[in-house]
């Protein structure tokens, strides 16, 4: 649930200490932005890049490991999906480029999709990839003994039919918006090898899968040293014969963010997926590094427990929003790399409603609303009361996330000015998750990422209180209805007005106070060319990366 980043600009030593306490960043984010200048030279083959990541991937078989970002990053380099989702969702829903499938078509009723697989694609052991692999992969994805994290994305797929070795057909129970996203989730796995062990043994066979790895993607694993590094090398049987350009990509596990930054600065590491904004000046000042930035899909907010008074009143929640100087928070914590959030449909996606303006910072209006609601400082202690009860609450966030730790303190100070007393409490991540999921909290500062399906059912539908991430316990029948309509709408233009209405209501009701949207900052050594990390994948086009020879 929580994405981790780091703090504000301080002297070097303090910054190093601060970032060391933070885990690495693993959220899914979106939209590419400024790139290094275009290269006139032709790409060259050869060389090694070193990538640093804070956590180790769960293994080579993504079906049996927690769905972390790094596990997916590596899995996507090893196993081809049917299609490749493109990061082009600023103006319209994302498009899909052919990958293992060269084409696809929908049936007239949009309940069946037929994929035509490339015929020139083989596994790294030379065995052709066929429709049987696709069908068997789906069987594994939904198998009860495997319990894949993303199995719910396949729940509307009724059957997968092998038409011929290179044609496969997916049958859906119903028509809905994200059918293509769901069908494309997960790489196609090698039935002829991994089918050798029964599904019931999969969850204890992490090492076996590493030892019996055959791949279809551009890279395969040359060595995997637990807690240290994963050496990816070119798959010689990759169907794009001239790729990857790189000989090797070494993924170095670097749990300490401070030492990862040191390593990219001293040239030991070529690329880090995300560094805190406070590190931007150092990265920019380094003549050997470029800083790639793009908007993240993370929205961070103060989540009020809508089931607990006084947060059950939308007007009180709006007063709290008015009392929080969000621009000051953004300026302090993110500087030029952030902006105020207005809705969970972040600014960088096609469905964002640009007509919505953020609520201003207006403590006078906040006091007026609270007074109208009966909140008065009767005993002159600076804290508002109603019926003898002071307006005090606990504001939690997770440890190790400096921006959020800073934000809760700033919010505490700002609310104090309107007579509301927030007490910050910083919790270990798992503890915070348990408290928020069980509803045992007043308010919490946390963040969620928006995936490209733009499906907010998990956060704002009333049924997601019991089973999902509606941690603020927000209920609004019209929002429920809109979310259901959006989920069933396959035409984006038909969905746009629904998204508009949804955002309007959320802006009005303020179930949460949207705090900020932020950019991802990826430092990369200038010798690396054509890297296009994006919010979906940091190693998005690793097959196209190449190394410019050093000029003596």
């Amino acid at each position, binding site marked *: *649930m*929580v*994405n981790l980043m780091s703090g504000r600009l301080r002297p070097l*030593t303090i910054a*190093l*200490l601060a970032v*060391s306490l933070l885990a690495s960043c*693993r*959220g*899914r984010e979106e939209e590419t932005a400024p790139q290094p200048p275009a290269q006139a030279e032709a790409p060259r083959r050869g060389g*090694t890049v*070193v990538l640093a990541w804070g*956590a*180790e991937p*769960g*293994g080579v*078989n993504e079906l*049996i*490991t927690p*769905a*972390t970002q790094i596990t997916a990053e590596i899995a996507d380099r090893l196993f081809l999906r049917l299609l490749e989702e493109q990061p082009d969702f600023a103006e319209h829903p994302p498009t899909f480029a052919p990958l293992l499938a060269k084409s696809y078509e929908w049936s007239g009723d949009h309940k069946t999709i037929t994929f035509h697989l490339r015929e020139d694609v083989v596994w790294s052991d030379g065995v052709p990839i066929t429709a049987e692999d696709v069908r068997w992969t789906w069987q594994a994805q939904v198998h*009860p003994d495997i*319990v894949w*994290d993303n*199995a*719910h994305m396949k729940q509307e797929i009724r059957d997968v039919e092998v038409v011929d070795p290179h044609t496969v057909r997916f049958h859906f129970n119903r028509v809905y918006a994200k059918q293509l996203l769901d069908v494309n989730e997960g790489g196609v796995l090698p039935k002829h090898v991994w089918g050798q062990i029964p599904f019931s043994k999969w*969850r*204890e*066979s*992490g*090492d076996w899968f590493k030892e019996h790895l055959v791949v279809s993607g551009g890279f395969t694993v040359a*060595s995997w*040293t*637990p*807690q*240290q*590094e994963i050496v990816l090398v070119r798959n010689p049987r990759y169907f794009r014969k001239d790729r990857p350009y790189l000989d090797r990509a*070494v993924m*170095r*596990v*670097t*749990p*300490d963010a401070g*030492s990862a930054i*040191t*390593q990219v600065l*001293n040239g*030991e590491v070529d690329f880090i997926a995300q560094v805190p904004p406070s590190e931007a000046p150092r990265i920019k000042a380094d003549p050997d590094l470029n800083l790639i930035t793009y908007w993240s899909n993370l929205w961070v907010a103060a989540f009020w427990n809508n089931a607990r008074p006084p947060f059950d009143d939308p007007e009180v929640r709006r007063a709290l929003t008015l009392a929080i100087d969000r621009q000051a928070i953004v300026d302090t914590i993110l500087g030029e790399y952030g902006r105020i959030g207005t809705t969970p449909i972040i600014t960088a996606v096609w469905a964002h409603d640009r007509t919505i303006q953020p609520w201003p910072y207006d403590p006078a209006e906040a006091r007026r609303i609270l007074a109208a609601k009966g909140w008065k400082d009767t005993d002159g202690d600076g804290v508002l009361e109603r019926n003898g009860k002071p307006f005090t609450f606990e504001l939690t966030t997770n440890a190790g996330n400096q921006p959020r730790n800073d934000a809760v303190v700033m919010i505490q100070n700002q609310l104090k000015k309107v007579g509301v007393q927030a007490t910050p409490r910083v919790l*270990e*991540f*798992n*503890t915070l*998750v*348990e*408290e928020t999921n069980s509803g045992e909290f007043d308010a919490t500062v946390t963040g*969620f*990422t928006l995936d490209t399906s733009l499906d907010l059912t*998990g956060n704002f539908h009333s049924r997601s209180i019991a*089973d999902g*991430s509606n941690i603020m316990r927000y209920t609004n029948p019209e929002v429920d209805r809109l979310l259901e309509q959006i989920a069933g709408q396959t035409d984006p233009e038909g969905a746009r007005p629904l998204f508009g209405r949804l955002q309007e209501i959320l802006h009005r009701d303020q179930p949460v106070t949207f705090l900020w949207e932020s950019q991802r900052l990826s430092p990369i050594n200038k010798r690396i060319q054509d890297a296009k990390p994006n919010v979906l994948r940091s190693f998005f086009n690793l097959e196209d990366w190449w190394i410019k020879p050093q000029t003596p």
Partner: protein
Amino acid sequence: MISFLLRRLAASLLLLFLVLTLTFFLVHAAPGDPTNLVENNRMTREQRESLRRLYGLDRPLGEQYLVWLKAVARGDWGVSFSQQRPVTTAIADALPATLLLSFAALVIDYGVGLLLGVAAARRRGTATDHGIRFASLLLYSQPPFWLGLMAILLFAYLWPVLPAGGMHSIDADLMSPAGRLLDLLRHLLLPALVLGFSNTGLTTRFVRGSLLDVMGQDYLRTARAKGLSERRVIWVHGLRNAINPVIQLFALSLPALLSGSLITEVVFAWPGIGRLIFQAVLSRDYPLVLGVTAFSATIVILGNLLADVLHAAADPRVRDA
């Protein structure tokens, strides 16, 4: 001596059992859930329940404990939730790195501690003594993660002579065997120094203290009177008698070494047991947490047992007590 050994062994086994039982219930009582670990978890409740069933977490805690205890009695430590591999394999993979780091740190800890402790005792009350006391207290009061970060800042960034982390260079597999060894030592140096120096303050104070205790003894005066050099008096006759408390300290420093290596390994990306349990705790990987705890507890208990035995061998009053 045999009955002393048996008694100590039985007490050690009981202690190990208690540690494991306590850890079992503590780790299960910690808030959080191994099926709900990922940011933005979009698993459904039904999926999470299936996973809990698969892990056996749906059964009553007492039953889980008995099942686990029976398995452990058979030598089966289970499969790690987060790594999908046997706990014993995960530990075996991480062990050499921790052994190497701990050994190097111990050499530095006791090497430097003995030298400084003896120097401080010999020059008691002088500027040297005060200087050493200041330095050792300063080192002892620095948390290892801070020392680690400062070491990285100084030696890997401002004056980049040593690598900031990891156990070997990216191109180590292309090096000659001697080159690989040198590369390993370069990577080992900073974490070993940090871990060694963070403990050596205490060792120094201890050596100085116990040496001062024996300095005024008659046999040392006799040794000096026999015309032995001061160096020989101190290092051979003095230290041999002052070493008993230091042996005790050695056993007692094992937990500090293990917990220190946890932090040091995380800061320096050193792939050992410390980092393994760090990750295991964060991901509520119960079998792995229990496996590593059992392993660490065994080391600590064995260390203490060894110290008791050595102490008893050196001092008959102990074993007869």
